[in-house]
């Protein structure tokens, strides 16, 4: 379905004709005051040299326009994660519960066209619902296309001027991504999808794969998550990179007992980065089937949780580096690798830096895959889960230091008062704690009930990833602190015949799905959250921004991001105490401009003006000092982007949550 709302002649054809795909380079920031790809550039710097909005005027920003996504789908969406694109005065975004694509006038927000695909049961069965994280743009200077992946896992190419499908691409503008995988799957019920955007690099479009979350799989076997490349004009498949090698291929020996044959997942559900000059794509691969138990896949399991560099044109592996051996912590690799040209000891290096859930920033020479600073294999805690075969060591970067707390120690527990600390110590006495890579345990009533870890699902950095300033060589990334409960219990009878354990505890039983949460037994048998008088188990900060100097590998500054939640401010146990800003937990994206680091705080609160909502905040890049803030009625759920149009700089951010349905909000300075 496509509906053109206004004549496409308003498109600035002359401007478009002057643009070439070569203008989106690896690590130069968003060019020409536009935002042509999800990460600003293909190196995912989320950087712009625009400088009209500054520390001096940020707080004066006013709303230029709003775009509500409510009626783009059959129901309201409360988690709008898109980063829109802007090219030639048009803004493109996904939105709504059917993952529609819209083209807006970037100056006014006026809707120009909308496209959506009604996918029936195929869409309803998709493992990744809602509107996704956005889309991709391609032009050869004449034709312009928008590409996106539907909920039902089809790659669609649209004419950017009209929103109609581009019939020369695939079959009438569509490639069925469920076809031609490693195995034949039911096109409706086969559970694979994608909420990341496709990546257009030159005339090639790349797509990964995402699955249901894997804490309690129905089987040790699943679909394998290949990465595929297509010709952006015809839709012809150019190559497929198999993330699980077969016998005779590099890495096959890391799958013992023929476990390569049935194990699946290892998708690339995060954004892919590309260096067009080197002709290389950087694939952040997630973990193999089962997030917390690896007994059915002994061995290190390449290319699970591995950063893989492949030739953009052929898909041939150039190098790889596994960040987690035989993962059982749901670390994945959750976000785009960031391409950064840095200077280390006087030597210029084309580098790639990978933020992670485990708060290590892994930095490599992106040509060779060699670590910039040594990454040493170090012994890690071993567990005793029957059937599990632990990796004895894990690769630990010597630099930069971890940018967020990782494992869990008594010193991490809430410490607003000695009484709260004592209560927290008691609350976890039946749990196992330890440093990063402390493994999950089989849950026992007498203890351990579970392992508690911060470096796991829900930890430091997730899908929004970070930003990088190519002028100063500083990388910026948000991180959150939350505690995951890593316990194992037998699956419910009949739920997973070939799987020994699901994530869960003796208190809650096996989980039906999903990742880590925290729980403890309340009097009377109900499960309650593992909190201390309703306060978080751990001390703040709960969310922070980190600035890391990539020339030296040192952390430049760290500041809590987000006002102290009202509920903590007002807690009776904290009366009379001066609680500094705690930051808030959440998945938070950042934007770097010539002078500012910009990011919305997660979560709602009563803001300084007395309005319920959330603040979009600006920080001095060098010091981390907050220099401005502007009110939003709901928290940021996408990542901010910016562009220049008719002499004015705009900031656009997707907001939603609570009772506030998805909305794009555009800010600019008053005239």
């Amino acid at each position, binding site marked *: 379905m496509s509906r053109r709302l206004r004549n496409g002649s308003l498109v600035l054809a002359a401007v478009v004709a002057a643009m070439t795909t070569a203008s989106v380079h690896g690590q130069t920031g968003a060019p020409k005051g536009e935002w042509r790809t999800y990460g600003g550039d293909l190196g995912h710097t989320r950087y712009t040299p625009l400088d009209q909005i500054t520390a001096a005027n940020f707080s004066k920003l006013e709303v230029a326009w709003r775009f509500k996504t409510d009626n783009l789908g059959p*129901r309201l969406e*409360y988690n709008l994660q898109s980063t829109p694109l802007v090219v030639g005065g048009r803004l493109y975004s996904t939105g709504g519960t059917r993952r529609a694509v819209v083209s807006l006038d970037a100056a006014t927000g006026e809707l120009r066209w909308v496209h959506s695909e009604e996918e029936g049961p195929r869409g309803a069965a998709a493992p990744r*619902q809602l509107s996704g994280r956005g889309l991709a743009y391609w032009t050869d200077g004449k034709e312009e296309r928008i590409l996106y992946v539907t909920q039902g896992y089809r790659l669609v190419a649209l004419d950017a001027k009209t929103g109609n499908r581009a019939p020369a691409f695939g079959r009438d503008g569509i490639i069925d991504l469920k076809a031609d995988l490693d195995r034949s799957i039911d096109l409706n019920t086969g559970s694979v999808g994608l909420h990341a955007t496709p990546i257009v690099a030159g005339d090639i479009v790349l797509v990964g794969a995402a699955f249901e979350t894997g804490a309690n799989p129905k089987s040790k076997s699943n679909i394998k998550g290949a990465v595929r490349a297509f010709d952006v004009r015809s839709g012809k498949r150019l190559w497929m990179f198999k993330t699980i090698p077969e016998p005779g291929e590099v890495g096959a020996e890391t799958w013992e007992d023929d476990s390569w044959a049935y194990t699946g997942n290892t998708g690339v559900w995060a954004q892919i980065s590309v260096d067009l000059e080197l002709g290389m794509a950087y694939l952040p691969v997630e973990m193999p089937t089962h997030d917390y138990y690896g007994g059915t896949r002994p061995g290190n399991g390449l290319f699970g949780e591995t950063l893989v560099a492949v030739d953009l044109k052929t898909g041939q592996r150039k190098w790889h580096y596994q960040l987690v051996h035989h993962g059982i912590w749901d670390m994945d690799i959750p976000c785009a690798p960031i391409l950064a040209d840095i200077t280390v000891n006087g030597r210029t290096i084309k580098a790639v830096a990978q933020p992670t859930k485990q708060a290590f920033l892994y930095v490599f020479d992106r040509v060779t895959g060699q670590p910039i600073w040594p990454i040493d294999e170090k012994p890690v805690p071993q567990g005793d889960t029957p059937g599990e075969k632990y990796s004895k060591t894990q690769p630990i970067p010597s630099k930069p230091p971890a940018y967020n707390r990782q494992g869990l120690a008594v010193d991490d527990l809430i410490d607003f008062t000695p009484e709260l600390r004592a209560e927290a110590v008691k609350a976890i006495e039946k749990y196992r704690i330890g440093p990063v890579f402390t493994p999950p345990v089989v849950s026992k009533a007498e203890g351990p009930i579970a392992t508690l870890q911060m470096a796991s699902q829900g930890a430091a950095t997730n899908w929004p990833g970070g930003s990088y300033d190519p002028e100063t060589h500083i990388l910026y990334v948000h991180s959150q602190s939350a505690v995951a409960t890593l316990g194992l219990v037998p699956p419910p009878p009949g739920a997973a015949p070939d799987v020994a354990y699901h994530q869960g505890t003796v208190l809650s039983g096996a989980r039906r*799905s*999903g990742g880590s*949460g925290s729980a403890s037994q309340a009097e009377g048998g109900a499960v*309650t*959250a593992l909190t201390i008088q309703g306060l978080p188990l751990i001390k703040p900060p709960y969310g922070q921004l980190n600035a890391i100097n990539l020339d030296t590998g040192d952390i430049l500054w760290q500041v809590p991001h987000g006002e102290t939640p009202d509920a903590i401010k007002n807690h009776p146990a904290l009366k009379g105490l001066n609680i500094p800003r705690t930051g808030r937990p959440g998945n938070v994206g950042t934007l770097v401009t010539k002078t500012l680091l910009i990011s919305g705080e997660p*979560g709602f609160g009563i803001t300084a003006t007395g309005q319920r909502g959330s603040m979009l905040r600006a920080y001095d890049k060098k010091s981390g000092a907050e220099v401005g803030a502007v009110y939003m009625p709901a928290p940021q759920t996408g990542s901010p982007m910016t562009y220049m149009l008719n002499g004015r700089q705009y900031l656009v951010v997707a907001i939603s949550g609570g*009772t506030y349905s998805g909305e794009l909000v555009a800010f600019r300075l008053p005239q």
Partner: protein
Amino acid sequence: MNRSGFIIAAAWLVITIAVSGQAQKTVWDGVYTEEQAKRGAEVYAEKCAMCHGDSLGGVESAPALTGPAFYANWEGETLNALFERIRMSMPQDNPGSLSRTQNADIIAHMLRVGGYPAGSTALEGQAGALTTIKVLTYKP
């Protein structure tokens, strides 16, 4: 004060008392029953747990429905706001498929897990009743 003035003042007083009476009710006032929470737990296990986790702890693609971060987002809102959000958007694979009573039962389960006390009257799934109950994370 003349007679009509007295009537107006009296009416204002009644309204004020009624309104303030409504505003004073919070999730700490025993606004659901144990039995209702148990019913809600069953519906939750079938319809919600697959995304939000069995113990409401949240997962990668769905937020926690308990704990400080969740309640911070609803602090000061009425239970009707929470109810409407659930009614309009959940369960994600078939929104609007649960009855008002089932949604109220689910909220009762959430309150139980959140540590809010049960009472002797079940939570009604009607806007009139739900708008009188405020979410307050901590006991006032």
